């Protein structure tokens, strides 16, 4: 009986402890009976049920195996696969969308810089035309002023020459009056004029 030797090795310490601990309370015959009962057949080694254990284990395991391999595991695997596919798809879509967004932002920036350049051009050309107009008007105004000042000058010159022309007759008048007052002699205007011109 190899089972018995193994059994006694396994159960002796256990039974001893049980016996020692229970000795204080339990009557001897109960202890002996229990000890006997425990060691009579160690259930995990009892060959009486070996066939039945194997039989029922194989049945249970077969049921479990077919249940899992035919129904549940494929179902879980499918769910997981669907999810990973979905995630991959979503990632693809996200990448695509990101590319689109990048394109859009690129074209937006391009149009923005175009617009900016155009605005710059417009401003530049406006400024040039305004400058040109300004210069033209300046030139016109200058020309006008020149003409007017020329006119004024000629008039002044005319007035001056007229005044210069009158001055002789005035001087002659003044001299005639002065001579008359000083000497009491009357001189003709022509003589006075002749005398002045002679000087």
């Amino acid at each position: 009986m190899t089972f018995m030797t193994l059994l006694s090795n396994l159960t002796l310490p256990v039974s001893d402890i049980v016996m020692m601990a229970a000795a204080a309370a339990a009557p001897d015959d109960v202890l002996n009976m229990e000890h006997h009962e425990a060691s009579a057949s160690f259930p995990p080694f009892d060959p009486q049920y070996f066939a039945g254990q194997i039989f029922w284990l194989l049945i249970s395991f077969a049921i479990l195996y077919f249940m899992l391999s035919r129904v549940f595991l494929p179902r879980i695997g499918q769910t997981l696969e669907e999810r990973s596919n979905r995630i991959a798809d979503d990632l693809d879509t996200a990448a695509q969308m990101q590319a689109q967004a990048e394109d859009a932002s690129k074209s937006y920036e391009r149009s923005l810089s175009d617009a900016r350049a155009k605005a710059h051009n417009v401003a530049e050309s406006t400024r040039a035309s305004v400058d040109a107009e300004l210069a033209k008007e300046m030139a016109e105004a200058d020309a006008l002023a020149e003409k007017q000042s020329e006119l004024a000058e000629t008039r002044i010159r005319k007035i001056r020459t007229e005044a210069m022309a009158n001055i002789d007759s005035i001087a002659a008048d003044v001299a005639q009056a002065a001579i008359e007052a000083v000497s009491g002699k009357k001189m003709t205007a022509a003589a006075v004029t002749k005398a002045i011109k002679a000087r």
Partner: protein
Amino acid sequence: MIRAGLDPISQFKIYKLAELKVGKYDLSFTNASFMMLLAVALIGLWMFFGTRKRELVPGRGQSFVEVTYEFVAGLVRSSAGADGLKFFPFVFSLFIFILFANMLGMIPIFFTTTSHIIVTFTLAMMVMALVVGYGVFKHGFKFLKIFWPSGIPIVILPFVSLLEVISFLSRPISLSVRLWANMLAGHILLKLFAGFCIMMVTAFGLFPGALGAIIPFTLTFALIPLEFLVAFVQAYVFALLTSVYLSDALHPGH
């Protein structure tokens, strides 16, 4: 009756629930058979409720099932390679069956299926049968390469081969005894320390007895989470070693 309840071995006893005899074999439906079918039924329920909705964004039950799936799939993939995934349903069934059997055993009164050597040995032999069967079916004579490692000097090759043969033959034993002994020892210890508490009180009365029960009570308290850990780890180790052995069948001569 109290004495019998305190006996740490009686929890492993098998009772017939329904008699069934086929020829000379006693195939009676017992409490052990009941626990096996209960484990299968609970796994079925769990899986059913976990996969019922099949949502894109999983709920709590569904993600629990999926995490378990990924866990075992990752285990198989890492130890047997991507082509090992054809054994995934088998490894998953083994893992989940042992896990449920171990965990159900942690519930008081419930029988622990995996505490019987014949059960764990049958599971181990299923693994070995699959390894040898698939290896021979797939590689024929080349399957013997698993005993003939490459890159070993010819002088020591016979010794290495001998060691390989011995290690191969001891695999089912180590596989089954590891699981069985862990479950058996854990349950005996738990029962023993818990029994001490009761014994102390019944033997010495509530006052000194409860004081004496403090140490065994603490130990019981500490052992329970440990046993839950062992229950999980043993299922994991069984599945892991199964994948490693299946890897041999897939790629002999490594």
